[in-house]
C-alpha cells in the first residue's frame, strides 16, 4: 500500500489510528499494530508476509539465544548463522539473478556459453529495510549494547511497524525499546500537530513536487537519454536530483509523521543534504539512518578512520560499494557506490593533507556537482546509458538534442524553485510549525490538493530497494 493512495489516507490510516488509540490493553495494541502492519504489507503482495515473519522469528530467537549464552564462541556462532540467514534471504531474492547473470556475461566474454538457471523471483518490497532493521538488533544484542526484546510481539511490532516498513527510515530497536516499554494510552495533541505537519508536507513534497517533476521533465528527457545535448542532459540530471530528494525525503517526513501519530519517535533521515560542503557531510545529511547504519555496522568494524590513508580509503570504498549494492542489484548501483566511495576516500585523503576549499560556497557547489553526477549513475538504466548522459553533460558527446519540447514548462519552473528551496529554505525538521486555526485549515487544504492527485499512483523511488 502506498502512503499516497486513497486506500491508505482515507481508510487504512484512520482505522489504524482508531484501533491503536482505542485499545487499552498493551498486548491488544501490539497485536493490532502488528496485524495492521502485515495487512499494509500484504496489500502489495500477501505471499511475502510469511517471509517477513520468518525473518522476524529468526532474529528474535537469535537475540534471545545470544543474550542467554555465556559462551563467547556460541554467541558468535549464533550471530554468524543469523547473518548468513538474513543475508541469504537478501542474496536469494535480490542478488542471485544479478550475480549469476553477470557471471554468465563474463563467461561469454571468455568464449563459454553457460546457461545457469535464474530464479526470476519478485523482489519483496522493503526487504532491504526490514532486514537491516533486524540485523542491527541482533548485532547490538551481541555487542551487549542492547537487552533482547522483551517479547516476540514487541519485536514483531517493531519490525513490521507500517510507517517505516517498506522504505525506512532504518529504525534501530535500541531507539524503540524504551518507547515500547512506555507505551502511552492517550495521544499527545502536540505530537499529532507535528505528525500531521510532517505527513502533510512530506506528502506535498512527494505528490506536488517529485511526481510533477518526474512526469513533466525527468521521465520524458531520460526516455531520450542517448540523444540529449549538453543542456538537456544537465536539465535531466538536475530534474532527477530534485525528484529523488523530494520523493525520498517526502517519504521519510511522512514516515516520521505517521510514527508521531502513533506516539513513536523516529530519527531524522534528511538534513538539507544538498547544502553539504563535502561528500562526507553529504552522507551525514542524506539518508542518515542508512549512513549511520553503514558506519556503525560496516565501516567501523572494518577499521573506520583509523590507520593509513590507504586503509581508510579501502574501508570507505568497501562500505560504499556495499551501500551501492544495498540500493539494488545492478551494475549502475555498484558503480554509483564505488564512485561515492572514491569521492569519500579522496576527500578524506585531501583533508589529511589540509587541502580543503576554504570558501564554503565553492565547496558546496563542488559537492553538489559531484552528487548530481552520482545521480546520473543512480538513475540510468544501464552503465552505457549513464556514460552517454555523462558524455553529453561533459561535452564529450554532442548529440543533436531537440528533446526540450517533451518537457512541461511547469515542471521546469518547479525544478528551479525546488532547487532554490533545497539551498535556501529551512528543511522540515528546522521549521517551526504554526499552530493557528488558519494554518490548520491550510494544511488540510494542502492534503486535499495532494489527495486529488492520487488518481495517478506513483510508487516512491526507494520502494524498489
Amino acid at each position, binding site marked *: 500500500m502506498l502512503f499516497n*493512495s*486513497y*486506500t491508505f489516507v*482515507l481508510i487504512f490510516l484512520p482505522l489504524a489510528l482508531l484501533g491503536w488509540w482505542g485499545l487499552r490493553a498493551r498486548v491488544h495494541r501490539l497485536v493490532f499494530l502488528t496485524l495492521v502492519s502485515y495487512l499494509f504489507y500484504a496489500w502489495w503482495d500477501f505471499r511475502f508476509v510469511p517471509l517477513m515473519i520468518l525473518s522476524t522469528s529468526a532474529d528474535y530467537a537469535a537475540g534471545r539465544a545470544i543474550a542467554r549464552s555465556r559462551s563467547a564462541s556460541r554467541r558468535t556462532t549464533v550471530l554468524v548463522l543469523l547473518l548468513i540467514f538474513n543475508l541469504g534471504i537478501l542474496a536469494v531474492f535480490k542478488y542471485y539473478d544479478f550475480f549469476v547473470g553477470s557471471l554468465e556475461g563474463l563467461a561469454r566474454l571468455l568464449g563459454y556459453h553457460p546457461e545457469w538457471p535464474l530464479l526470476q523471483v519478485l523482489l519483496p518490497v522493503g526487504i532491504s529495510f526490514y532486514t537491516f532493521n533486524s540485523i542491527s538488533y541482533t548485532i547490538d544484542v551481541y555487542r551487549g549494547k542492547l537487552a533482547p526484546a522483551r517479547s516476540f510481539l514487541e519485536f514483531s511490532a517493531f519490525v513490521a511497524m507500517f510507517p517505516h516498513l517498506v522504505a525506512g527510515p532504518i529504525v*534501530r530497536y535500541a*531507539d524503540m525499546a524504551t518507547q515500547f516499554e512506555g507505551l502511552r494510552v492517550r495521544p*499527545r*495533541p*502536540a*505530537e*499529532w*500537530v*507535528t505528525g*500531521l505537519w510532517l505527513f502533510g508536507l512530506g506528502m506535498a513534497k512527494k505528490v506536488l513536487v517529485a511526481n510533477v517533476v518526474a512526469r513533466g521533465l525527468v521521465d520524458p528527457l531520460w526516455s531520450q537519454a542517448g540523444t540529449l545535448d549538453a543542456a538537456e542532459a544537465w536539465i535531466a540530471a538536475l530534474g532527477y536530483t530534485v525528484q529523488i530528494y523530494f520523493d525520498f525525503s517526502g517519504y521519510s517526513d511522512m514516515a*516520521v509523521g505517521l510514527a*508521531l501519530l502513533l506516539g513513536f*519517535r*523516529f*530519527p*531524522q533521515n534528511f*538534513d538539507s543534504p544538498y547544502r553539504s560542503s563535502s561528500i*562526507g557531510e553529504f*552522507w*551525514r545529511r542524506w539518508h*542518515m*539512518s542508512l*549512513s*549511520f547504519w*553503514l*558506519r*556503525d555496522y560496516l*565501516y*567501523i568494524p572494518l577499521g*573506520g*578512520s583509523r590507520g593509513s590513508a590507504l586503509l581508510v580509503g579501502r574501508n*570507505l570504498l568497501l*562500505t560504499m560499494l556495499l551501500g551501492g549494492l544495498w540500493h539494488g542489484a545492478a551494475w549502475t548501483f555498484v558503480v554509483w557506490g564505488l564512485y561515492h566511495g572514491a569521492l*569519500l576516500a579522496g576527500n578524506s585523503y585531501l583533508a589529511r593533507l589540509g587541502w580543503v576549499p576554504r570558501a564554503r560556497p565553492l565547496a558546496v557547489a563542488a559537492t553538489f556537482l559531484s552528487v548530481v553526477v552520482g545521480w546520473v549513475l543512480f538513475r540510468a538504466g544501464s552503465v552505457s546509458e549513464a556514460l552517454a548522459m555523462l558524455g553529453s553533460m561533459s561535452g564529450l558527446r554532442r548529440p543533436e538534442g531537440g528533446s526540450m519540447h517533451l518537457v512541461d514548462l511547469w515542471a521546469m519552473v518547479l525544478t528551479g524553485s525546488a532547487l532554490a528551496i533545497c539551498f535556501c529554505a529551512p528543511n522540515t*525538521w528546522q521549521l517551526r510549525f504554526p*499552530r*493557528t*486555526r488558519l*494554518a*490548520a*485549515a491550510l*494544511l*488540510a*487544504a494542502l*492534503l*486535499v490538493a495532494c*489527495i*486529488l*492527485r*492520487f*488518481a495517478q*499512483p506513483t510508487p516512491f523511488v526507494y520502494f524498489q530497494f
Partner: protein
Amino acid sequence: MSQSSRSHLTRAIKASPRDGAFLRTFAATLVGLLVALALLVRVTDPFATFGTGLVPPIVSADRDYKAALYRSRTPPPEVVLLGSSRIKTLRPGCVSALTGRPAFNFGVNAGVAEDFLAIFRFMRSQPRFEVREILLGAEPEAFTGDPSLGRALAQSRSLVPFVSQVESDPERLWSDLWSQASALAAVRSVWHYGLDRDKLPQEALEPDGFQTRPLLDDQIRNGRFPQHSVVLSSSHAVRSRYLAGARLSPGRVAHLHELLEEARAAGVRVTAFVSPVHPALTRDAASTALPALTRELVGVLRSAEREGLLHYAETRSLSDFHGDSTFYYDAVHMTPDNADRLVTEVYNGQGRCAVQ
C-alpha cells in the same frame, strides 16, 4: 563518514494550548473539503460516472452515461448502433422509422473493437435484453493499435467488467470522487451550466443516445459555420495518424470475431458498414496507410459476411448513399442529414426516414 556524527536525531516537540483547536480545525476542514468536493462531483457528474443526470456531461467520457441511458430505455431497444463518435449522429429515430423497432445509439468516443464487445456483453447482462439487430459502424482506427490499452474503456465502470483483459482499478471508487480531473471538470460544469447557461453546449445526448451539436448546428443554421477551414484542419490532423505504416491489429480483429460469434449465438443480426470520411480527407490521406487499412478492414468484414456472421453494406463513399460533402461537422463526423441518408442506404433504400 565521520565517527563523531550523531547517530540519531529526534525532533523536540513542545505542547501548546492551541494544539486542540488546531487538530479540530484540521479535521473539520479536511472532512468538509472532501465532502464538499464529493458532493460537487456527484451532483454535476462531469464524467457521467454516477448517472446522476442532473447536469449533462460536459466531457467526452460517455460510456457510463450511455450505459445508464440504455438501462432506462422503455421499451428496451431492439436495434443498437455501435461504433465510435463517427456514428453518434446516426438517429435511432430514423432507424426506428425504417425498421419499426425501438433503436438506441451506443456509439462511444474513441470506440474500438473491445468497446463494441464490452457493450454487447453489457447489454446481454441486462434483465431485458431484446436486441435483435446491431448496426456496426466500423473504421480502421477501431481495429488498429494495442488491444491491451483500452484506456477509455478501463475508466468505464459499467463496461470494464465485461472485457477480461482490462482490469478494474480498486482505487477507482475514490478517484471518481476525488481527482484533480473530476474536481476541475465539476467546476467547469458549474460554470457552464450555472453561470454561462445562455451559451449553447458543444454536444448533447438525447435519451436514445443520439448526439446533437447545438452550438455547431446553430452556426450552420445561421451560415456562420466555417466548414471549409474546419474540414481542412481536421483532415490534416486525422491524416497524421496514418502517416506511419500500419496493419489492423490481430487482437482487435479477434475481438470483432468474438462479438460476431456471440451475436450469432444470441440470435442477433449484425449489419456492418464503414463510416465514410469527408472527400477532403480521402484526398489528403491518399498517400498514407488509410486507404490500405480501409481495404483491409473491408476485407475482414466481407470475409465475415461470407461466413454468415454479418451483412456488409457499402457506404465508404458519399456516392454510395447519396451523401453530401457539405453535411459534415469536420473531416470524419457527419451531420444528421448525411447520417439519415446513410441509414436509409443501409436498409437498401426501402422505406423512408420519418424523423427530420
